[in-house]
């Protein structure tokens, strides 16, 4: 058992790309947790998706031992967190397992939207915060100015801020010394009844659910009978262990420690992130507070391309949810796509990542429909309904009023980009409510938007008009009534429910034309004529025709060509398989997603 006095639990928080994972790399190196041979950039970003995109998606926990300059041995528990706003739920859970946080701020960029959002979460949880001004190796770094920003905007004392370059390995010792000297040791009582907070979990086909816990009080060992406090399910612990960074079994986890537990938990719904584990025979009186539930804001339908894979998709979704309870799912069915799920996400990136993880980790081929927000509809009967899917919208004569969600967006941007940003916001029906200077050169613009307007491409557009210098944070304002209509897409006269969207009436005509034009480009020529129409109610507002394919033949095929031509035919066949067949027409998957990108 480790002396709690020698334990330091901390997380690394920052705005996206400010260098958290790179700082974690240096800490892993200096503490010898990863050998030079095994070391690679952003070591803790272990998912292929994270490595491909160069961002952290999942928080990662690792235990290290550190020999301090005063020659004392400490056990450090480091949690690297994601910086993107869509994954802030990961940050909030990580914070609950820590007594301190390294607040990394890129010294060339300064305080950004998620710097603030994340540091406030840490402050709210009484964490000791150590500012680390990173990337001082870059010529554009201005650590003094950034330190002032931190003082002024966040109100943190920066006299002990560390100047670092995670890339060059500068300031790493100082960071570690600050961790052991400034972050308090965990305080929980090892003798008290067990209370362990589940802050992450995943499913392993052999061991069942693996849960990551912070032992707040008491201790946990193999053989012990435990109870999940929210569901009252009882299990016997099989193994306890830590990541260092490879999994390692240890004899027990005690107060203050972070580690994993397995207990042959096969029913997925019995493990809940945020739940408290206690001992069956010596239960704690009260569960830990857990986490504030998060509300999904973007919705889309997820369907297997092959309808026979529905069950496979269902179990995949349940298992992935164990690892990411920030998305929601409900069964739905579509005339065009069969059975699937309407899923809710914290943002578009979150949506993309969940879909990709389902495809990669569970070997599925999926179609996702265009993302949409949820609407509140007051029926003429006076009844209020909430719809997450445009296909559910009642016919117009039954609708009294439609309300759409509004959000407040704060845009942090260098002064010189104010013009283009304001222009973009106008285009998206934004209403400016405030504007103030954060520092001399940086401004915060506050806008109210119909969420629908910014759901799809606002963030990308913002990044491009500001060359990546803007960051945003947003919160929900509630529903406001609006003049909205449902736009249907018909393929060979048949409405395709999965392609319906809800749009502002003023934009409906334009949208309809754009959409039909886009589908006209995406849908390849087929053996039959394809007519694409957009309609509102019974009014067709746009129409395009794809003439039937009449010629597709390889002129030459001799001995030397046979293998290559066969492969081309196989590719053609594969491509067709990946399309969704609706009636006689094959529709490429991107049609379902691309539909809003107009």
């Amino acid at each position, binding site marked *: 058992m480790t002396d709690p006095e020698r334990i330091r639990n901390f997380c690394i928080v920052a705005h996206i790309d400010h260098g958290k994972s790179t700082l974690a790399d240096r800490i892993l190196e200096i503490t010898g947790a990863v050998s030079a041979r095994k070391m690679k950039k952003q070591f803790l970003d272990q998912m292929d998706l994270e490595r491909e995109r160069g961002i952290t998606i999942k928080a990662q926990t690792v235990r290290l031992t550190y020999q301090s300059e005063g020659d004392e041995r400490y056990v450090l528990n480091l949690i690297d967190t994601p910086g993107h706003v869509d994954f802030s739920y990961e940050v909030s859970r990580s914070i609950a397992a820590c007594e301190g946080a390294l607040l990394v701020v890129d010294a060339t960029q300064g305080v950004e939207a998620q710097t603030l959002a994340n540091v406030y979460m840490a402050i709210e949880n009484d964490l000791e915060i150590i500012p680390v001004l990173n990337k001082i190796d870059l010529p554009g770094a201005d650590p003094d100015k950034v330190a002032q920003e931190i003082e002024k905007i966040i109100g943190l004392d920066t006299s002990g801020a560390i100047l670092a370059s995670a890339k060059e390995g500068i300031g790493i010792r100082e960071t570690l010394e600050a961790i052991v000297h400034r972050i308090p040791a965990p305080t929980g009582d090892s003798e008290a009844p067990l209370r362990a907070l589940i802050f992450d979990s995943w499913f392993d086909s052999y061991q069942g659910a693996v849960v990551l816990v912070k032992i707040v009080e008491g201790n946990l060992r193999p053989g012990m009978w435990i109870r999940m406090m929210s569901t009252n399910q009882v299990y016997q612990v099989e193994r306890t262990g830590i990541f260092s960074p490879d999994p390692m079994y240890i004899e027990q986890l005690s107060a203050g420690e972070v580690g994993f537990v397995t207990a042959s938990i096969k029913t997925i719904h019995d493990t809940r992130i945020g739940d408290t584990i206690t001992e069956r025979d010596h239960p704690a009186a009260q569960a830990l507070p857990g986490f504030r539930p998060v509300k999904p804001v973007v919705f889309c339908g997820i369907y297997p391309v092959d309808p026979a894979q529905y069950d496979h998709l269902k179990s995949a979704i349940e298992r992935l949810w164990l690892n990411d309870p920030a998305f929601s799912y409900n069964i739905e069915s579509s005339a065009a796509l069969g059975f699937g799920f309407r899923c809710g996400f914290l943002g578009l990136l979150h949506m993309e990542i969940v879909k990709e993880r389902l495809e990669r980790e569970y070997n599925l081929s999926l179609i996702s429909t265009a993302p949409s927000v949820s609407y509140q509809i007051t029926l003429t009967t006076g009844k209020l309904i909430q719809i997450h899917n445009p296909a559910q919208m009642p016919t117009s004569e039954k609708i009294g009023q439609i309300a759409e969600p509004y959000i407040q967006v704060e845009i942090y941007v260098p002064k010189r980009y104010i013009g283009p940003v304001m222009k973009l916001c106008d285009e998206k029906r934004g209403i400016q409510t405030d504007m103030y200077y954060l520092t001399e050169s940086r401004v915060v613009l506050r806008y109210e938007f119909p969420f629908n307007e910014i759901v799809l491409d606002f963030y990308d557009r913002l990044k491009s008009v500001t060359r990546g210098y803007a960051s945003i944070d947003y919160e929900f304002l509630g529903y406001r009534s609006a003049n909205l209509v449902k736009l249907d897409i018909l393929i060979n006269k048949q409405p395709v429910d999965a392609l319906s969207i809800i749009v502002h009436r003023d934009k409906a005509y334009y949208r309809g034309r754009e959409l039909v034009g886009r589908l006209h480009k995406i849908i390849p020529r087929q*053996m039959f004529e394809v007519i694409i129409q957009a309609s509102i109610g019974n009014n067709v507002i746009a129409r395009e025709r794809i003439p039937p394919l009449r010629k*597709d033949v*390889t*002129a030459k*095929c*001799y001995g*030397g060509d*046979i293998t290559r031509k*066969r492969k081309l035919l196989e590719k*053609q066949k594969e491509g067709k398989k990946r399309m969704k067949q609706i009636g006689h027409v094959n529709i490429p998957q991107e049609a379902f997603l691309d539909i809003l990108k107009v």
Partner: protein
Amino acid sequence: MAGLYIHIPFCKTKCPYCDFVSGPFPVEIQKRYVGALLREIETTSQEAEASCFDTLYIGGGTPTVLPVEWLVSILEKTFDLFSWSDIHPEVTIEANPGSVTERGLRELRAAGVNRISLGVQSLSPGGLKVLGRSHSVSDSLSAYRYAREVGFPLVSLDLIYGLPGQDVEGWHKDLEGAISLGPDHISCYELTVEGDTPLKRAVLRGEVVLPDEETVLEMTDLTEDLLARNGYRQYEISNFAIPGRECRHNINYWENGAYLGLGCSAVSFLPPYRERNIRDIFGYIESVRDTGRAIEEQEVLDTEARFRESVTLALRLIRGISLPEFSEKWRYDPIIYYGDTLKVLLARGLLALEDQHLFLTREGRRLANVVLSELV
């Protein structure tokens, strides 16, 4: 049936639409290449897999850019070292009009070549120009005349249609011109814009405009009709012949028969193995020098894969698939094996079934890739 193919990767100039392994090379390289080829003939002929051959095809590139003596020595060695099922096997050589002389043809004929395939491509100066060919219309006419004079019993002409700027009338004239010469065999290929060729880039840049789909379809219909009226029976998507004068070597490919390919990039099919030689000329020369062989890639096809491939190849033939023969040979009955997929294609009129033969209809030939990609 088994065929022997020999690849000569040299041409006078490189045509802008061509993505074959071929091009102009200095005579010194050509010499080393022929040396390697002779060596490969020696080594392969000693191996067990080299059975008895029925046809020989020397293709390219443009085999006739080589000095004729070299070609003759290749021919002699081939006849000497491999065994042949007939004392007069079908022996084809590909030739480009600009690269043949009467003397050369005479020597080739004397060395046993009995079929010549002339890369005429177009009989109009404008057509030759857009194709970037180095020969002229009169070169084609004299090449044809030489071939007949020296006594080639089988002469085939290659034509390309759907050329930039060509209209149906222009193609009609080309076809008439070709027919009036009286060849035994005509191949008509629609111009395909391949991979990374100067033609492709020109099309992408918009500098070159190909005739539209409607026009090309009309040209294809015209080709089939006009040739049929003049006694040329279509036996494959792009191939027409006076009945009995089809190219047996090529039919063997569509029947998915065995063949041995020699030379760089040449492919052999010795079921269940399909092997390809090194594409690069220098790589090939080096490998043959060191090991006597130059195989770079091999795929092994199981029975079912070979069956499916055979279906897609045999459907290129106008007579199509003989169901009893296929069921007998493969132990799969195509009708049962493909089930509903086949029904849809039959119902759609792309395939037809008559006298126990399954074949592409006229519409099916235009959409062959759509049909074959369902069956591959």
